[in-house]
């Protein structure tokens, strides 16, 4: 009886999955295919996934091989990588330290710090646009790498993830290290930290993904085109100089460039992505 009913369920199930796969991957396929099209081909056959003729024009221009186009796209990519890697490293250090302090070290004001972090989780990013601009302007950090990177070190989610990971380590391990004469910092570095590697990977991935995709913070932290990240550069271009329906192959080539690093990280670490998101759902 089970088998009889299994077949129609399977047919319906796989058809739904196939349809959904087309819907969820289709836009990326269109994005990629169109980046190899000529402008007229993109306009006349938008849905075709086979460029006719295939041209590398858009990509050549994206990589600055067209001198007529005055866009420092390679510089934008460099900025994106520099900022993303700095933010990721910074968050790993700051989150691990703060998470450990909150999980295991008794210090005066710990519960206040904890409460502040939880309260800050509720502050939505779009509300912080003007505040961030104000503070960067006052500190003289507007239009600087420091102003782009340092505010992104605030990572309440990462701190709480690390805190949870540290709490799950049996305290006896640390006690043993302490009896052997290791200090708090030594114990942290050589005993505890290696045990929370999965959490560090999760925090690192979230930091990489978040800062690579970040847009609004850079929008209010810079006005200098030389400091634009890839996303900011593309966004300014599409909503300004290159607005309207022209040059879609170039715009979609740039969009593809913005997606590729995330795709690579996602393919390698997809289990971590999925698991961290699901556990966030369960904890709630």
């Amino acid at each position, binding site marked *: 009886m089970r088998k009889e009913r299994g077949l129609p369920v399977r047919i319906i199930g796989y058809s739904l999955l196939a349809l959904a796969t087309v819907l969820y991957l289709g836009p990326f396929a269109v994005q990629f295919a169109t980046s190899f099209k000529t402008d007229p081909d993109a306009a006349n056959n938008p849905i075709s996934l086979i460029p006719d003729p295939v041209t590398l024009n858009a990509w050549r221009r994206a990589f600055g091989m067209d001198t007529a186009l005055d866009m420092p796209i390679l510089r934008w990519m460099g900025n994106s990588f520099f900022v993303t890697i700095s933010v990721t490293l910074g968050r790993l250090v700051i989150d691990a330290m703060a998470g450990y302090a909150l999980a295991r070290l008794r210090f005066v004001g710990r519960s206040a710090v904890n409460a502040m972090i939880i309260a800050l989780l509720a502050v939505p990013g779009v509300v912080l646009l003007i505040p961030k601009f104000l503070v960067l302007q006052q500190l003289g950090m507007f239009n600087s790498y420091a102003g782009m990177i340092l505010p992104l070190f605030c990572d309440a989610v990462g701190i709480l993830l690390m805190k949870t990971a540290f709490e799950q380590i049996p*305290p006896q391990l640390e006690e043993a290290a302490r009896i052997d004469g290791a200090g708090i910092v030594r114990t942290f570095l050589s005993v505890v930290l290696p045990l929370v590697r999965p959490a560090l990977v999760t925090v690192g991935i979230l930091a990489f993904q*978040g800062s690579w995709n970040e*847009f609004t913070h850079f929008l209010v932290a810079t006005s200098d085109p030389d400091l634009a990240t890839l996303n900011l550069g593309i*966004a300014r271009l*599409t909503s300004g100089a290159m607005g309207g329906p022209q040059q879609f192959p170039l715009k979609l080539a740039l969009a593809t460039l913005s997606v590729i690093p995330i795709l690579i990280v996602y393919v390698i670490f997809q289990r971590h992505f999925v698991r961290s998101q699901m556990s966030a759902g369960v904890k709630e």
Partner: protein
Amino acid sequence: MSQTPPLSSAAVGGAGPERSSAPPRQSTGRPSGQSASGRPAWRRSGRSAARAGENRVGWLFAAPAVAVMVIFILVPVGMALWVSFLEWNGQSSPFTGNYTFVGFDNYTRLLTTEGLLQRDFMTSVRNTMYYVLLWVPLVTVLSFGLALVVNQRVLKGRSFFRTVFYFPSVTSSVAISITFLFLFQGSGVVNTILGWFGVDGPQWFTDSRGLIHLLFSALGMDSPPGFLKDNSLGGLSLWDWLSGPSVAMCTIIALTVWTTSGMFMLFFLAGLQNIPVEIEEAAEVDGATPWQRFRSVTLPLMRRSITLVVTLALIGSWQVFDQVYIMSQGSPAKTTLTPAYLSYTRSFGDGQFGVGAAVAFVLFAIIVVLTVIQRWFSRERDA
């Protein structure tokens, strides 16, 4: 701002209060292990020395995180609150430079004083309300549906499909917005597909007609009845309030449904996997049809996940910004203007930072109220 981080952070945040209210952790075990080796007289001083050391190291470890949060979030929010009481153009310092203190004027101009600003703000609230009405049910039903299919044990390759559906949620909103600009062009992909079914697709990005207005005119009501046109609320006529989401807004809704459903699908999957297999098997043995099983077993057990997703979706609805910046800049006829975008253009575009900050704080208040409601619901369920 992409939608993913605030949503997931809100999800993790919900766990916070529960965790912090738990009894003190085992960390107290460490100092006692140390002091056990000493004689009573030393024990006390040894312990307090260890305590002092722990206090110092604790602060050392927490200091970087506390510093960046205070400098880049707490203090700036205070500064912005001050700015929201000023008329200030962003050129000088808001503390020593050229500004005029105007008290609550910026807030009253938004909420009660008739004028362009009030109209703009109320329009952005109307747009968001229709966004909520359309987007929240769509994204909830779609992501629940995806989770149900991906959770079917008879299907193979489920983790592959899960990965595929979640991918749009992790990619950049900027890249996706550009792609959707291409898809929804006048003679673009979407209209080509609609054409296959004999539907003549609209000019998506320039069509400011509201769906409800379109429905009225389809029913033969082309001009608004007098009482709707003559009465107004917050600077908008009742007829304008009743417009429905514009055709252009539908493209943004389609985009955010597409990017967010994968993430919500994972929340639902986590909930579905928490349902014990025995319960479903018991229902099956009792002869319940699949629909009955879904209605009377799955759905009630999923209430928690549904509340979570709906409230996160509600909160996220008020934060739409990136897509508007790239796809529409609030046009056509301000039907895609959102509060966040209004706050941005008023400050950085028009140099009215006081007004922009006031919009941000009203928006903040709305989101805080929604968050409090969400927390209250979670509390209720746990009790």
